[in-house]
């Protein structure tokens, strides 16, 4: 009965996680010491979420096996991947992590990309809130039958 609301809330969770990842990227825009690998500090790598439709629930698979039409239920974050683009090199010989030529490896976070993603995530979140309210008001309206 509440599956409509569950679909929407899965999307709200996913979009919120997306926003959290964007926050993490922006917060670590200058973090040159994210990991310590083989005696060297490695800068932060930009992270991205991978979204996929949720569909492995028992009910969905059963309906599929019975050739019944089924609405898959919601969306989920399948994993968080790292952006493999190269680090930015900044000339700053005074920096403790500078190499012998005076260059520092900075995280591959692009503030522009992050801002665009943030707006996109916010808008998607808002759209889902609208759907949530619509579904809720429909359920409430159904209680009016026979009044």
């Amino acid at each position, binding site marked *: 009965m509440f*599956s*409509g609301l569950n*679909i929407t809330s899965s*999307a709200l969770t996913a979009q919120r996680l997306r926003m959290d990842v964007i926050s993490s990227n922006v917060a670590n825009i200058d973090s040159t010491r994210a990991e310590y690998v083989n005696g060297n500090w490695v800068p932060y790598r930009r992270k991205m979420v991978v979204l996929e439709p949720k569909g492995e629930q028992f009910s969905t698979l059963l309906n599929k096996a019975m050739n019944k039409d*089924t609405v898959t239920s919601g969306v989920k974050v399948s994993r968080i991947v790292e952006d493999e683009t190269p680090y930015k090199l900044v000339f700053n010989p005074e920096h403790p992590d500078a190499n012998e030529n005076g260059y520092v490896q900075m995280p591959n976070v692009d503030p522009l990309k992050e801002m665009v993603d943030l707006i996109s995530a916010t808008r*998607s979140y808002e*759209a889902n809130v609208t759907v949530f309210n619509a579904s809720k008001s*429909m359920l409430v309206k159904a209680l009016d*039958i026979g009044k």
Partner: protein
Amino acid sequence: MKIFSNTISILDQALDYSTTKQKVISQNIANVDTPNYKAQEVLPFKTVLKNELKNTKHLSAQITNNKHIPFPPSENGTVTIVKNNIQYNESGNSVDVDQEMTKLAENQIYYNALIDRISGKFQTLQSVIKGGK
């Protein structure tokens, strides 16, 4: 005597359709950022029947007497289809948010109208039962 004429069961089916439609719209909007997700759509039975009639092979009723009139199988309810050939943005996603929002508003009004009618029907019955008092 049949108190509950067809009206209630028809309205009931319409409510089912509207609920499924709401679910599909939720699903589409939930997956608005999912790469390669294709938008789904609910077709009312009328449309499905029309499509099926075009390739009539599917529709063969058991005819045991040559005076029988062929009829479609009375499978009611709705069918969800996936719009596969549409790409709305570069990630392979085919959800058009504006369209979905419009459908959402439309579906809400439709649902409210159905609830209103079903309540009206019950009210009529009540009025009859009470003898107009």
